[in-house]
């Protein structure tokens, strides 16, 4: 019997090595795997490359990982925010590398990794600073930039419900980067509100089929509220 559930967030991330590329899903607080990020902070891996839409907010979660100088490089679309002070400070001090990627290109590069695409031509960013030094091509009547997939060692995702095969469903706009990141990593770890019996998820409604998920952690309601 296959049961992908793992006892704790700590156990689910115990094997993350130094230098790993880790995708962290979520868009703002929605769909952000808060307890997995906290477990990653506790776990201690260093020199991480992080893929996220942002670069941390306030003092918790990804911001705390950055503040602890555990992130060598970050790929994101929108690092600068009113409360991204830990990133801002480290970036200005030259302590963290930034690869700025337009949000749709970020999503498509992640999707390409999961889908086995070697590279793709996108019209986004053609003629801008973010295309400087990149291969471009006119195809038909539009100009395109060649972009490469972003593969990860781990993806930390948050879903609403899972079953023991790792099938996941999300809630509202908390879906965002979660399904594509789940497909792009060698080891996808999902934190969920609830693990339901096999068959409780409608097969028409499963957004992330279990093939993309290695480990599932149920986060206790008390912990969820504390975060």
């Amino acid at each position, binding site marked *: 019997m296959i049961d992908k559930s793992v006892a704790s967030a700590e156990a689910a991330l115990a094997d993350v090595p130094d230098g790993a590329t880790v995708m962290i899903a979520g868009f703002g607080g929605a769909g952000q795997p808060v307890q997995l990020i906290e477990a990653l902070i506790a776990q201690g891996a260093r020199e991480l490359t992080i893929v996220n839409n942002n670069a941390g907010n306030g003092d918790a979660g990804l911001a705390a990982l950055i503040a602890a100088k555990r992130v060598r490089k970050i790929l994101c679309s929108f*690092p600068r925010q009113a409360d991204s002070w830990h990133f801002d400070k480290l970036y200005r001090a030259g302590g963290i590398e930034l690869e700025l990627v337009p949000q749709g290109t970020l999503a498509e590069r992640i999707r390409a990794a999961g889908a086995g695409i070697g590279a793709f031509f996108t019209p986004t960013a*053609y003629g*801008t600073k973010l295309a400087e030094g990149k291969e471009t091509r006119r195809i038909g009547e539009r100009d395109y930039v060649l972009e490469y997939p972003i593969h990860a060692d781990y993806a930390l995702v948050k879903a609403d419900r899972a079953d023991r095969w790792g099938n996941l469903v999300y809630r509202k*706009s908390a879906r965002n980067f979660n399904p594509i990141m789940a497909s792009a990593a060698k080891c996808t770890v999902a934190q969920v509100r609830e693990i339901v019996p096999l068959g409780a998820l409608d097969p028409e409604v499963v957004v992330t089929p279990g093939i993309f998920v290695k480990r599932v952690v149920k986060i206790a309601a008390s912990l969820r509220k504390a975060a």
Partner: protein
Amino acid sequence: MKKLDRKEMAARVARDIPEGAYVNLGIGLPTLVADYLPKGKDIFLHSENGILGMGPKPPEGEQDPDLVNAGKEPVTLLTGGAFFHHADAFAMIRGRHLDFAVLGAFQVSVAGDLANWHTGAPDAIPAVGGAMDLAVGAKNVLVMMEHLTKSGESKIVERCTYPLTGARCVNRIYTDLAVIDVKPDGLHVVDMVEGLSFDELQRLTGVALKKTAIAA
């Protein structure tokens, strides 16, 4: 001459959005447009984070942390709306399925180049979000901005001095002074605020404007 305030600008943009349109409203000023879309007409708001059929802000106390817009503010979903993931959300943008994107701007050039993501200041931390995708993807890119900078310079320019978001992508500019179409043969003024003459608008703008499109 009375300049439009932000709400009046939003209302002016909203007037041009027809029923049935699929629309993305950028963060900031463009978000206000939602408040002026005609009630009772079906206009479909898209959000980069995976929403189609986005509704207004929820009443205080009914916010759902799992239901936010691209600016990460609480929103609602209209009856008939749908959720999807980020790659699908941007497939809609890049694949030219959106009828309109309404975006803020630092500068727009006579060729329709858009600069709205980076001031070019050497110490600025850059952040682009979905702006470049919207600029190249939407069938019609509408820009909303004040006509002049705080120091009185025109934001409509011969060539953008700020880094580009997209080249030759803007279709129409809405400012607090005028509505201007960007066409291959130049900038056509569509309308102006009350009390503003074409000559005065031309003087303030600095780049050549055409008046043939102004309704009699």
